[in-house]
């Protein structure tokens, strides 16, 4: 199997290199045939990578202990689905996943665009396959997943129990779908620069890819947060760890791009800015992979020292400097068609949104790399605490939240004062009215939370107004029912209303963040069976304890009754497992979720006499984080959903605008 895997990777490398050469050759006149040949090499690369990854999976499933990788991350008693997920438990495996996804995306990109964007294809294929060649090279020569062991052990050393979790099965592939999909916009941007076809064409080709990548990055980040929440047992979900930041930064940049690209489409502005954003987003995605897989920054998830560093660094420098140099050389072609007419315009709002997102990205980058920088300068590794990120992210986050409400209220180009007054009245009035109502809850215990709640109301009313006025127009136009009007409204302008749905999700996200960060109740209990203890306003009764052994692990668990105001509220069963192959304990957190609060219990220890040590957290509003994820994904899907072809037909042109305009 090792031989098969290695041979396929070498062939894949050859296919990728050939594709680069052929694609570039096809740019010369009279050599169009080379382009088709290069495209077929892309398909070949995809087929070979598929064989490689299937081989690896087969090796994991069939316990091929002669492979170092299988021995290091699997064991004979491991369940089949964890065996499959062991592929992304480590460096070589996740690089294999990266390369395979790239080959699939490259194939899809070629199939979708080979006729529509023929001029852009040669360079785009060359760039994509250049990236593919880099990863194939790493897999073939630097960090091979198919390395064999001289002495074949009888069993593997098992998958890290922390990774034996549903969310960890899904989290890395989601993140990688996002990271890798960003390679396509990057390749088209570079191609547009090289071929000087810098009109809106390349933007049209990459917009949907970016939404796709953005969506999966977001899902990946949320799954990671959920994993940390359920598996790590410290009651939280986000700690500004370098690996979290690594996914967060490209997501922020993709968010910035999705907004600024609208300014370019509508007004022909920010063209250089968009180029830079696309390049940066991809570079940060590669950097994210590098950061999580190289161990240059100390992190919870560090994969140990590695030999990848210099290669990745060189790759990042090329991917950054090359396109930036191209941008500089094409500056005259990238001049804006229009200029900013007023700060009271939608494009100005987008500009502020972009500046804030970029600011947050670089603050995060600064904090992440601070230990590396200080070590280089002073010799000491100095790191920044979570406080650094929180002080910066809070004001920027609140400002961004406010902008999501302001944006829809301000028209493109220039707004008259009277118009602005009219549009802001309702949302502002609603926010002002909400302030005293919030006094009834405990939101104002922390003024920041109260302020966030008011802004949230402002944004929600502003978005609801958009939907309402849109529905009124639709309803008035043709005798459709109100729900029908809503459906039509969204279907006719998916991007706009999908975007609004995402914004609603963002509001919900902020509510969840504010509630769960500001009002945590925490306590620890030591209980013998039958005893009770109190944390906050809740009483916990230890009702039962249990122990069990299976071939794979030894587990202990307790049953806790949760009482509030004398009434039974929930039953929790936190546990603790000891994995036999690795002799590593693993906490099984028990969570009782409801829209208002999560009761979160960790079994720290269960001793021989049945005495249990427990950590208890009561986290308000956490459920809304996951709900916001669903809303954001739903909105993203609406925005990315391809419009039906008929929607483009001339019959849909506004009141014969085309005819009238010609006349």
């Amino acid at each position, binding site marked *: 199997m090792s031989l098969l895997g290695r041979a396929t990777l070498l062939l894949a490398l050859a296919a990728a290199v050939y594709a680069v050469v052929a694609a570039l050759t096809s740019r010369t006149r009279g050599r169009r045939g080379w382009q088709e040949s290069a495209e077929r090499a892309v398909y070949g690369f995809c087929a070979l990578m598929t064989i490689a990854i299937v081989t690896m999976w087969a090796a994991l499933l069939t316990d091929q202990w002669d492979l*170092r990788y299988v021995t*290091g*991350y699997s064991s004979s008693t491991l369940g089949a689905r964890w065996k499959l997920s062991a592929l992304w*438990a*480590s460096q070589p495996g996740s690089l294999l996943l990266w390369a395979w996804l790239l080959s699939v995306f490259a194939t899809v990109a070629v199939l979708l665009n080979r006729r529509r964007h023929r001029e852009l294809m040669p360079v785009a294929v060359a760039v994509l396959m250049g990236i593919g060649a880099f990863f194939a090279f790493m897999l073939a020569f630097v960090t091979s997943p198919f390395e064999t062991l001289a002495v074949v052990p009888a069993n593997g*050393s*098992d998958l*890290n*129990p*922390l990774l034996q979790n549903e969310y960890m099965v899904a989290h890395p592939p989601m993140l990688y779908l996002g990271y890798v999909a960003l390679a396509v916009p990057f390749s088209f941007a570079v191609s547009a620069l090289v071929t000087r076809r810098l009109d809106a064409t390349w933007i049209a080709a990459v917009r949907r890819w970016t939404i796709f990548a953005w969506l999966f990055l977001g899902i990946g980040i949320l799954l990671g947060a959920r994993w940390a929440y359920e598996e*790590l*047992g*410290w*009651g939280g979900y986000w700690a500004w760890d370098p690996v979290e930041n690594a996914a967060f930064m490209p997501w922020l940049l993709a968010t910035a791009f999705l907004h600024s690209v609208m300014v370019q489409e509508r007004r022909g502005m920010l063209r250089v800015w968009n180029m830079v954003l696309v390049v940066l987003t991809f570079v940060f995605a590669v950097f994210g992979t590098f950061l999580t897989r190289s161990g240059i920054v*100390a*992190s*919870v*998830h*560090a*994969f*140990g*020292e*590695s030999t990848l560093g210099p290669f990745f660094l060189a790759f990042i420098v090329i991917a950054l400097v090359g396109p930036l140099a191209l941008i500089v050389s094409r500056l005259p072609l990238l001049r804006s068609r229009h*200029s*900013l*007419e007023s700060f009271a315009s939608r494009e100005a709002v987008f*500009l*502020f949104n972009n*500046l*804030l997102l*970029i*600011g947050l990205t*670089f*603050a995060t980058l*600064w904090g992440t790399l601070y*230990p590396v920088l200080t070590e280089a300068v002073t010799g*000491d*590794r*100095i*790191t*920044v*605490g*979570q*406080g*650094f990120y929180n*002080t*910066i992210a809070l*004001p920027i986050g609140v400002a961004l939240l406010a902008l999501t409400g302001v944006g829809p209220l301000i028209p493109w180009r220039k707004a008259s004062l009277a118009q602005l007054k009219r549009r802001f009245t309702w949302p502002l009035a609603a926010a002002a009215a909400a302030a005293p109502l919030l006094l009834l809850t405990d939101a104002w215990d922390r003024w920041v939370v109260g302020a966030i709640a008011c802004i949230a109301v402002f944004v929600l009313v502003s978005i609801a107004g958009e939907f309402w006025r849109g529905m009124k127009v639709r309803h008035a136009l043709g005798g459709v029912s109100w729900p029908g009007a809503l459906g039509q409204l969204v279907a006719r302008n998916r991007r706009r209303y999908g975007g609004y749905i995402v914004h609603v999700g963002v509001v919900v996200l902020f509510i969840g963040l504010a509630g769960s960060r500001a009002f945590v109740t925490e306590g620890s209990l*030591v209980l013998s069976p039958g005893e009770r203890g109190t944390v906050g306003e809740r009483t916990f009764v230890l009702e039962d304890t249990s122990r069990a052994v299976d071939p794979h692990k030894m587990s202990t668990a307790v049953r806790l009754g949760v009482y509030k105001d004398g009434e039974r509220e929930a039953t929790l069963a936190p546990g603790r497992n000891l994995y036999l192959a*690795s002799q*590593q*304990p*693993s*906490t099984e957190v028990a969570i009782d979720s409801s829209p208002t609060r999560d009761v979160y219990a*960790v079994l*720290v*220890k269960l*001793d021989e006499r049945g005495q249990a*040590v427990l*950590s208890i957290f009561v986290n308000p509003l956490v459920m809304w984080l996951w709900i916001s994820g669903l809303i954001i994904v739903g909105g993203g899907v609406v925005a990315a959903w391809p419009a039906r072809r008929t929607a483009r037909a001339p019959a849909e042109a506004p009141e014969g605008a085309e005819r009238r305009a010609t006349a």
Partner: protein
Amino acid sequence: MRSRVRFIIAICMAVGLAGVLGVMSLKGNQQTYASPGALVAGKTYRLNATVAPGAPADAAARAQTAEGLRFTVRDKANPGTTIDVVYRGSVPDTFKVGRDIVVVGKLEDGVFQAQRNSMIAQCPSKFQAKADEAAHSGSR
């Protein structure tokens, strides 16, 4: 042209703002990575060291008690240098003798008083951990 000037001003403002925020935040939040030998009393550190033999097996439970979890760590490069750590809060599952950990805290009266819930245990996946150990012992 006027719009370009405005644009540049806006960018400068953003950069300036980020810079100010950055400097301000760093002031209050800097923690130097240090090994047990390099600690000075009264300053906040991220202590990066290896858990020395003798750490209790029920570490997680002890860290929940009022007295806290008390254990010894040794310098990664120079195993002779050790220091005692007192820690309260959640203990990562991967905590055990020989693991590299990071805790945030201050040196007080010769004992490293760690902040609540500040412990991170580095969890390298297994075979690479072994490879690392081999590399380290080889270099020594």
